[in-house]
């Protein structure tokens, strides 16, 4: 029990006067502190006034970061959670506060990010009357949360908060929403000791069954053309080291998804590069030709599989995932292991060690032809782009960024072309190094996510790589970064277009550039300076390195506006609904 909580209990016991019985808001704060929360991203409003009042009194224990838009608050909490594995916490008001937060909540749901979002609600007696700033928050968020609560009694708050945090971080992590009517945060109620709270609905993760692990390992050992298809589950379960040992011991090729980047070092000789729509030729071909696909912490997203009917047509599939609903959702596996991917890999590894040097040697030798094939795909179609003397190529920006940051920056992105170039040309070597909007594909995610990550990791260099479109969706959070002296670097890949949409219009809609020109935009350098940040700009290839270096070395918040070639396309591309064989590798 925490000291502060002990104090409350002592006060209640010794002076059972009504005024000393805690309010809902006080209980909420104690419950958050009990969960180890010291950081909240939020934006006040009428329905959360009691909570903000209490938060002010608790400011030595919980630091509140005042954002400029609720979407920014949730993305910051996501950046905080994604970079550390801790639960990110958000506090917003009712109505528009809650609806503004929905994009972030849906984003966290898709990318399995543990966050708890506390929303204010109108007083109970006004619920259902179309009251001022009333919206059915639990109704609106129901499809994109692990669970949500409308708290009706202040005395329920300790149990609700405890269960919410448990749900957010257990199993497949995700967002949980706690909706608190204004009168509930004001009401006084009997306090339940937090360490005595039990929540009857909790579930535990059953360990992976040993027999299944043995069958999986045997299948891997006898396969001739295996691929390890690894996703976001590697980071969430902390399986990166055991994955690396397992892949190295058996000499297995690894193809990470966008969410899996960093789960296995991209620079590792066993790594085939990213899989999927804009993945490498080698990774996609390897999956297409594979006889055994070992899917680890993935969900067979359409951006990976393309057309399901012809995805990995020769492969038998082993699927390991902590979410039973992911298994068999899109692809029926030959062998399903429901459970924690780290535990499963640890079992594979120990079983492999038990089966003796000779058997491993034979297994590895049996895949020599497969590796020759993979190496020839890698040689024939490496990731590449045409250089230019007079324009800055976006791919070269990412290469230079990689070089200048020695491959060690935490990189956050939005969605679109810049995101794919980051995925292709910044080889990530650690989990939680790339913080990107994978599933929902949210423009405007990168900047606030970087701010949240910078807060969690004050000693790291955190760079948001964004497009000029996405930047303008959440650039108001520059003020938050400046206010709290969070020295993020924002690298804008500025092509004056909604680049990915333009690329699709070029390739699949006969170059009809319908509503993608956003070249009317503010001067981003001046905008940065208006916010009290520093602005930098590179327009010609010969300035790129120096400008990047100056921007990255700037001590405070920096916006680096890089004007890149306007009509660059992301290659390779597997058109939507197609497969690896339909991959377009170059113009």
């Amino acid at each position, binding site marked *: 029990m925490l000291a502060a909580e002990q104090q409350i209990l002592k006060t209640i016991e010794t002076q059972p006067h009504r005024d000393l019985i805690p309010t809902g808001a006080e209980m909420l704060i104690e419950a958050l502190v009990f969960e180890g929360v010291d950081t909240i991203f939020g934006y006040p409003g009428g329905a959360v006034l009691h909570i903000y009042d209490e938060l002010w009194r608790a400011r030595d224990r919980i630091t509140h970061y005042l954002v400029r838009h609720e979407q920014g608050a949730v993305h910051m909490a996501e950046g905080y959670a994604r970079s550390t594995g801790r639960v990110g916490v958000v506090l917003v008001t009712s109505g528009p506060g809650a609806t503004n937060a929905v994009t972030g909540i849906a984003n966290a749901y898709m990318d399995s990010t543990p966050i708890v979002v506390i929303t204010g609600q109108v007083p109970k007696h006004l619920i259902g009357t179309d009251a001022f700033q009333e919206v059915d928050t*639990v*109704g609106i968020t*129901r*499809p994109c949360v*692990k*669970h949500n609560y*409308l708290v009706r009694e202040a005395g329920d708050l300790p149990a609700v908060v405890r269960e919410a945090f448990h*749900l957010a971080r257990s199993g497949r992590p995700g967002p949980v929403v706690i909706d608190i009517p204004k009168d509930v945060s004001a009401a006084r109620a009997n306090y339940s000791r937090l360490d005595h709270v039990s929540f009857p*609905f909790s579930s535990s993760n059953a360990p992976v069954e040993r027999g299944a692990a043995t069958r999986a390992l045997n299948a891997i050992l006898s396969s001739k053309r295996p691929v390890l298809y690894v996703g976001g589950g590697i980071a969430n379960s902390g399986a990166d080291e055991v994955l690396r040992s397992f892949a190295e011991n058996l000499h297995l090729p690894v193809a990470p998804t966008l969410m899996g980047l960093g789960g296995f070092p991209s620079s590792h000789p066993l790594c085939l590069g990213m899989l999927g729509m804009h993945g490498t030729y080698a990774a996609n071909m390897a999956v297409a030709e594979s006889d055994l696909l070992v899917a680890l912490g993935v969900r067979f997203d359409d951006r990976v599989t393309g057309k399901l009917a012809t995805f990995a047509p020769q492969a038998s599939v082993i699927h390991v995932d902590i*979410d*039973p*609903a992911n*298994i*068999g*959702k899109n692809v*029926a596996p030959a062998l399903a292991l429901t459970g924690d991917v780290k535990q499963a890999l640890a079992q594979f590894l120990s079983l492999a060690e038990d089966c003796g040097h000779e058997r491993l040697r034979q297994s590895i030798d049996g895949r020599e032809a497969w590796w020759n094939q993979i190496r020839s795909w890698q040689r024939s179609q490496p990731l590449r782009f045409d250089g230019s003397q007079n324009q800055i190529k976006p791919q070269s920006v990412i290469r230079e960024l990689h070089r200048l940051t020695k491959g060690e920056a935490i990189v956050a992105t939005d969605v679109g072309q810049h995101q794919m170039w980051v995925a292709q040309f910044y080889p990530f070597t650690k989990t939680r190094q790339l913080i990107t909007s994978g599933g929902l594909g949210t423009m405007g995610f990168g900047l606030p996510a970087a701010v949240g990550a910078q807060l969690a990791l004050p000693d790291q260099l955190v760079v948001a790589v964004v497009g000029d479109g996405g930047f303008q969706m959440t650039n108001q959070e520059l003020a938050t970064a400046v206010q709290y002296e969070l020295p993020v670097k924002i690298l804008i890949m500025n092509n004056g277009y909604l680049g990915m949409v333009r690329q699709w219009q070029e390739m699949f809609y006969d170059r009809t550039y319908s509503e993608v020109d956003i070249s009317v935009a503010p001067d981003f350098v001046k905008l940065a300076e208006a916010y009290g940040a520093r602005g930098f700009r590179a327009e010609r290839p010969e300035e790129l390195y120096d400008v990047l270096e100056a921007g990255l070395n700037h001590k405070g918040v920096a916006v680096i506006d890089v004007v890149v070639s306007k009509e660059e396309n992301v290659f390779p591309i597997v058109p939507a609904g197609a497969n690896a064989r339909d991959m377009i590798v170059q113009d």
Partner: protein
Amino acid sequence: MRHTLSIIVADQPGELSRIVGLFSARGFNIETLSVGESLDPRWSRVTIVTRGDERTIQQIVKQCERLARVREVQDVTTRPHIEREMALITVSASAGAERQEVLSLVSVFRAKVVDISHTQMIVEASGNKEKVDTFIELLRPIGVTDITRTGHIAINRLSASVEQHEERMVS
């Protein structure tokens, strides 16, 4: 194929909506739906009749199991079970012959006349889907003017004999 799912969920506000919302969000179909108290009043039993291939049904079961307040999801179709549905049917029957015909069908189907006026009769029937369907079909020529059906409820069977006996009586 038709499947009957029995879902035990906490009796709390909004929980039914979570289940129904999941079905619509993921494109699963609901043929019938009924909700009521289970043995333990803190838990409701939701019975949903749905259609889909094996994989779809498995997905539905797993997605429902993911809900924090769902305790148990059972595809009762996979095990011996009893299914019942109740229907209230309004039949327009003023002439003696029509009434006689309704009464004889009521007797064959072990239904009940629950209301009668100069022009109409309301009959109550219960049984499995096929029985209720057939009953309604046979009443139609006489003149059915309204139907309300409860949707299915189901329970696992203890012994095969009773229901088989009853089925024989009906058919």
